[in-house]
């Protein structure tokens, strides 16, 4: 068996997610290659070559792959997928955007958000917002899979894979990049943070999210949000945790002013320890919280910050 892993890039650098996807590939077993596609991605390729268990890093460095637009990325994967038994990517917005195209063009199904590997053809994946876990077996010749990174611990960085350039240049006259508005933050990435503190509609407005900053600073936490907080315009969409946002599983998750709708729980209920702060003692979030504190967040947050 041989497995191709499409690497995630974050501002041209290798994103943390990829080390988790390589771990999933190891659970499947076989030779593991990584594909880095983008423009000016040598540093990412060097970082990928250090990941444990990787055989070869294949680098498609060309302007057509900048911003990893779906159309050229799909064509590239189709071109490179021959000979592989599995193609994997993280269930990031890039993985989700690109992998189904490969699957369709190869006339195979795609498995989304795999969080467990039983064997080379049998996998676990969540359905119905994670309220059920399906065991599925694929008899397709090529298995195309997106990986939920919280299901696999990252591999180490003591490898030394070979790096090889890919010459194939996809053509793309259908789509073009216009602009990107990326959130700038010195905080850890939501997906990889050990501590996450999230605010919901109860925060009242965007300004009040500052109340979470001091606590996040002290705990080295990433800041997340519920969909209601995003919809209300308090914070940008990239902070949304949940079924249709980011999936997190930190050591500590603190939910502030969040009721605990199933769609939100879907994104955080695999956290090790959950704390809920809510003024409604009947809020469903308390059913999944290890520690619940009933009260007004506007009193609790400043006190928590000062006592940490």
């Amino acid at each position: 068996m041989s497995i191709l892993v499409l690497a995630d890039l974050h501002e041209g650098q290798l994103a943390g997610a990829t080390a988790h996807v390589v771990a999933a590939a190891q659970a499947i077993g076989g030779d593991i290659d990584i594909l880095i596609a983008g423009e000016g991605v040598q540093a990412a390729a060097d970082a990928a070559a250090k990941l444990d268990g990787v055989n070869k890093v294949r680098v498609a460095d060309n302007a057509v792959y900048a911003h990893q637009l779906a159309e050229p990325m799909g064509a590239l994967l189709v071109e490179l997928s021959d000979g592989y038994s599995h193609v994997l990517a993280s269930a990031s917005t890039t993985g989700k955007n690109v992998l189904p195209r490969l699957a369709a063009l190869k006339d195979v199904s795609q498995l989304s958000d795999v969080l467990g590997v039983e064997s080379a053809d049998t996998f676990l994946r969540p359905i119905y917002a994670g309220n059920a876990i399906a065991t599925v077996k694929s008899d397709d010749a090529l298995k195309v899979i997106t990986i939920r990174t919280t299901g696999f611990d990252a591999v180490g960085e003591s490898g030394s894979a070979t790096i090889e350039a890919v010459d194939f240049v996809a053509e793309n006259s259908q789509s073009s990049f216009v602009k990107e508005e990326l959130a700038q933050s010195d905080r850890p990435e939501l997906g990889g943070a050990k501590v996450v503190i999230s605010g919901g509609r109860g925060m009242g407005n965007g300004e009040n999210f500052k109340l979470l900053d001091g606590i996040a600073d002290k705990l080295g936490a990433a800041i997340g949000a519920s969909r209601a907080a995003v919809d209300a315009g308090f914070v940008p969409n990239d902070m949304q945790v949940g079924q249709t946002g980011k999936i997190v599983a930190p050591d500590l998750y603190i939910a502030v002013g969040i009721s605990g709708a199933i769609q939100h729980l879907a994104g955080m209920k695999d956290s090790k320890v959950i704390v809920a702060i809510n003024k409604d003692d009947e809020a469903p979030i308390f059913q999944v919280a290890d520690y619940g504190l009933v009260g007004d967040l506007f009193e609790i947050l400043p006190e928590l910050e000062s006592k940490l």
Partner: protein
Amino acid sequence: MKVLVAVKRVIDYNVKIRVKADHSDVDLTNVKMAMNPFCEIAVEEAVRLKEKGVATEVVAVTVGPKAAQEQLRTALALGADRAIHIETDERAESLAVAKLLAKVVDEEQPGLVILGKQAIDTDNNQTGQMLAALTNLPQGTFASEVAVDGEKVNVTREIDGGLQTVALTLPAIVTTDLRLNEPRYAKLPDIMKAKKKPLDVKTPADYGVEVASKVSLLKVESPAERKGGVKVASVDELIDKLKNEAKVL
């Protein structure tokens, strides 16, 4: 320009599902069903394009059992002009749906196809991307803004790092994210009128598409339940528990 919208009948998003005792699947008997929320947003966007004079006709399509006609009638009540029901009792996976939709695209030649980004039952998030690949059309997924501009459409996409805008040549495939719009509710007179709007019934065989997939569902289980925790009385107690009991501080 014609706009094609794909809608799926799924469990109502408020319902908490149960797994069947024999672990063969989730139990959908007597469960409230509805249009997938992302598909409601897709219909709304198509109808708004018509109201703005950008679209001339909105065609809704679904793949599913007879009962899925309810969701097509909802789409018609919300403003779609006609509907196509591709009837099958088999579990149609994203690839099969995408193949069927590709045939409909071929027949109908829409300028824009709008789908939801994700069906909330399988949580697949694949069909639009697969359709784009099969029809060789560009895709704008997870859209929070769609702006048709002559021969092009600008799609603002919700991505992990923030927002990305891409320009696509038309025809194009768009999948909706939650912030794209707020769907309207169907009014009673429109629900009555929808009953008279045209609804074509086809089968996968009419399009020469095999619905069966090579992925089999072996087992469905409930996730590990979290044990209910404790309530703490104060911030001090919380910090103490996190330090000394949970050892996460």
